Every structure is written in C-alpha cells, then in structure tokens.
C-alpha cells in the first residue's frame, strides 16, 4: 500500500463524513434544488475528462476524451444553470414584487404584482 493511496482513502472517508453532515434539516421545498445542486457538483468529473487528453495519443484515446469532455461539460453547465433557474423562481415567489431581475419574471412581470393586489382586496 502506497502513501498516495492511503492519503486518497483518508480524504475520501473524511469527505464522505462531511457529506453526511452537511445536509441535515433541509425543508422539503428545497429537496429538488438540492438534488440538482449535488448533481452539478459531480460534474467535477470534467476535470478527469480533460486530463484524459494529456495522455491521448491514438484514435481511441481521442474519441474517449471527446465524449467524456462533452458529457461532463453538459453535466456541469446544465446542472448549474438549471439549479440557478429553480432557485430564481423560489426567490421571486418569496418576494413577488421585486421580480424584475429574473428571466421568468419578465414574461409575467405585469401579472404578478396585479394578482398580489387582487389578493389583498379579497
């Protein structure tokens, strides 16, 4: 057993424990965004995919590097953007009037405050 491997295992186990602890009392409303956030974090595999290119010197290597990079990049970029989109809606729904900064709000900008006013009258 090499020291390198031992270090890797120690890091792995500690990271597992941190992972267990970091999520605890999450309200159910955040389960979906949280899953999406965790999903984007494992997009770190892009780093691994890029490192394939360092040693790729034949056709098979290039093909593997290309597909791995494409897959991993899709995971990272898509993951963060979609999580952001979910959370934006959350934010907006909590403060319906200050909605101007979100894409989703642009289309419904006229309606949201109007509906809120109606709610107030009823």
């Amino acid at each position, binding site marked *: 057993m090499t020291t390198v491997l031992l270090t890797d295992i120690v890091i792995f186990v500690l*990271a597992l424990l941190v992972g267990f602890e970091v999520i605890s009392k999450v309200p*159910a409303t955040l*389960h979906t965004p949280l899953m999406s956030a965790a*999903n984007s974090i494992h997009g770190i595999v892009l780093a691994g995919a890029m490192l394939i*290119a360092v040693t*790729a010197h034949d056709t098979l290597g290039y093909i593997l590097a290309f597909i791995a990079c494409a897959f991993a*990049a899709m995971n990272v970029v898509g993951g963060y953007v979609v999580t952001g989109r979910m959370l934006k809606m959350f934010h907006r729904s909590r403060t319906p009037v200050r909605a101007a900064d979100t894409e*989703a709000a642009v289309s419904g900008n006229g309606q949201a405050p109007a509906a809120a006013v109606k709610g107030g009258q009823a």
Partner: protein
Amino acid sequence: MSAFDWITQLLYVAAASCFVLGLHLMNSPATARRGNQVSSTGMIVAVATTLALVAHAGTVTTTGWIVMIAGTLLGSGAGLYAARKVEMTAMPQLVSIFNAVGGGAAALVGIDDYVRLASGGIAESTTIFTILDVLIGAVTFSGSIIAAGKLQGLIDGSPITFPGSRAVNIAAALVAVGGGIYMIATPSVIVLVIIILAALTFGVTMVLPIGGADMPVVISLLNAFTGTAVAMAGFVINNWALIIAGALVGASGGILTKLMADAMNRSIRNIIVGGFGTGDSGPALEGPGGDVRSIQADDAAIQLAYAQKVIIVPGYGLAAAQAQHQVAELAALLEERGVDVSYAIHPVAGRMPGHMNVLLAEANVPYPQLKEMDEINPEFPRTDVALIIGANDVTNPAARRPGNPVSGMPILDVDRAKSIIVIKRSMGHGYAGIDNELYVDPKTSMFFSDAKGALTELTAAVKTLVA
C-alpha cells in the same frame, strides 16, 4: 513537489471547500441562491486549475487540444440550451439526463485509464477502483436514461416487468461482479467490455420495474451513485478534487434520497425491490366500498363561484398534466368574484418534494397564497370548498389510523372542509395503492377529467355564470 504542484493542489482544496460551503448554504431558502453561486465559483476554479495542469503537462498533442476543447464546448452548449429551454414540469427528467452523462463521463475516465495501461500491467489497487468506477458509472448512465424516459412518458411510467426480467437483472449483476473479480487477477480489455455491457443491462433492468411516481427518489439515488463513481475515478487518476467532490455528493445524495423517501412515506428498499403500484396510471373506475358522487363542470363551478373560502390542493396529477397555469387562471377569476382562495401545499406535492412551489411560482401565483401544511390545516373547517386537483394519498383520512400503507403519513385535513371537489382522471390509486376514503365521503363530489381539461372547463363555466 514543485511550486506549480503546490499551487494547483491548494486550488483544488479551495474548490472543494466551495462545494461543501455551497451545499451547506443550500439548506435554507434564504441562502440557497448564494450557495449555488459559491459552488459554481468552486467549479470554475477547479476547471481552470485542471486546464493549467493540462497545459503544464506539455504532452498534449494538437489533436488532443482540439478534441478536448471541441468536446467541452459542444457539451456546454447542449447543457446550456437544455437547461434554459426546458419546461419547469420537465425539470426532474433533465436533472436525470445530466446525471446520466455525468455517470457516463466517470465511466469513460476509468475505461480510458484501463485501456491505456492494460498492456503495461496495472497495480491491483488501481484496477479495483477502475472496475468500481466503470461499473457504477455505467449503471447510472443507463439507469438515469430510463428514469428520464419514464418521467418524460417516452417509456411507460408504470412498473415494467417481463418474464425473466428479475433473472436478467440478477444475471447482469453476477456477470458484472464476476468479470470485475476476474479482471483484478487477469487484465483483459475484452472482459472490460463485457462488464460494461452487463452494468448497462443492470441499470436498465433495475429502473424499468419501478413506478413513475417513485422516480424522483430513484433519480436522487442514481445521483448519489454518480458521486461515488466520480470519487472512484478520482482514485484512478489520483485527483483530489474528484475524490472530495464525488464523496461529498455520494454521501449527501444518499442522505437526500432517504429524506425524500421518508417524506413520501416509502422505504428505499421497497422502491428498489419494486413496491406497489404507481401514481401515473391507475386502473380505470374500480370503486371502493360506498357510493361515489360524480359532478359536472357547471355544478362544480356554481359551488366554487358562490363560496366564501376555497382551498386548492394541487398534487401529482396537476404537475403531470402541466395545469399550473390553468389553476392560476381559475384562482384569479374566483378572487375577482371576492372568493378567498389559497393553496395547500403538502411537503411532497408534485413530481418531487418542493416541485409544486416551483411550478406555482412559475404560473405567477402570489407567494402569500401558498400555505404549508401546518399553516393551512386549521383553516379547513372554515372552508366552503376544498378543490383537490390530482392529489390522492396526501388527503387520505386513513393515514390517521394505524395498519395501512399510508399510516402515520402527515396529511392535509381536507375531509374537515364543508364540501370537497376532487378532480381526478379515474378512481385509480395513488402510489400507496389503497382506496381513498375521502372519495366516498358524502361531502365529496368527483369530477372525472384530466386536470388541464377540468380546470379549463371550470374557468369557462364560472365565466358564463358571472356574465
């Protein structure tokens, strides 16, 4: 270690810290957005550091650079496009697709390493991690694609079993594990191909027998799998960033899966082994004991229009029919007539926990109208009409009694309202697979239709009444 090594490794540690911090901030709605920003900053740092490592290695061929950059750009473009364009109702399946490609990429990292080193003899320890990486990654890849297909409706959402499906599943698992053990003793690329195929088959046969309504929990589980595969890939290429981030997602994803399953009153074991029923398509019109009163749009509209207080209970059926805009329109119309309208949001309403809040927010429902379960339950006795749209188990009064599948599950006290209208496609079961006593309550009227059609009809009927 050179200065360059020191800097890159420390930057990886910084990136990993950002991931931990980001996940932690996601625990509360107030800080969730900042959490995502912190986490994405960490990702940018990690990718930039890796780019520096790749350039510093100096062994990358021109073709290598082109392949790497073209692949990354293509993937980023596809991810960005999909994430921007997708309907909010289709979010769970998109997350599943992102999860699939992540698992696929992790498997490819392992495959590349193995193929390259197979000729030169590999240390046994690396082989173990490579095999685990490839196996878990391949299972997640095919499993997540099937899960996404089920949610999208491309594959039948109900549990699919065929004669011998369980045997195929077990055989695939045995081949994958057996082949893996063989590979530790005797490096062989052919066996690697065989275990990849076996793992892909296992992923498919694992998810196919699971009902559509359980898919969110399955996706969360597969998400945790991918995290573990990424950590294994980190062992293979000896990269801390992958090990830390992968382990983090593996563990937190596992906890999250358990939280989700608990909120739905389901055990993970039950779901995987193939439990009862599905929420997607119940059997048509099979009545429980007692009389069911059915109602037409006009009568329902009159009840709603002349009520003082209406509580809308949206559920899985509303999400599946994508009727969030129609319900918002009906609610706005009733509000105009002076009816007090609010929404009762059960913690697990929708396609997955928290999904309903996102959907209704998208349809511009004012936030103050959305009430959490504990807040709204005392209001039901003062409510004239409770309008239930595609929700089932979360309203079943049987949950208050012990001895049935929904026992102990927190429910909305819909049966305490003065009258109840249920919009539902049929008398089919929810995922608990039991009859809902609410439907035979004398106060209840059933409006058999899909959520979108029913709400459009109701809105039209109310408008006619008003005019």
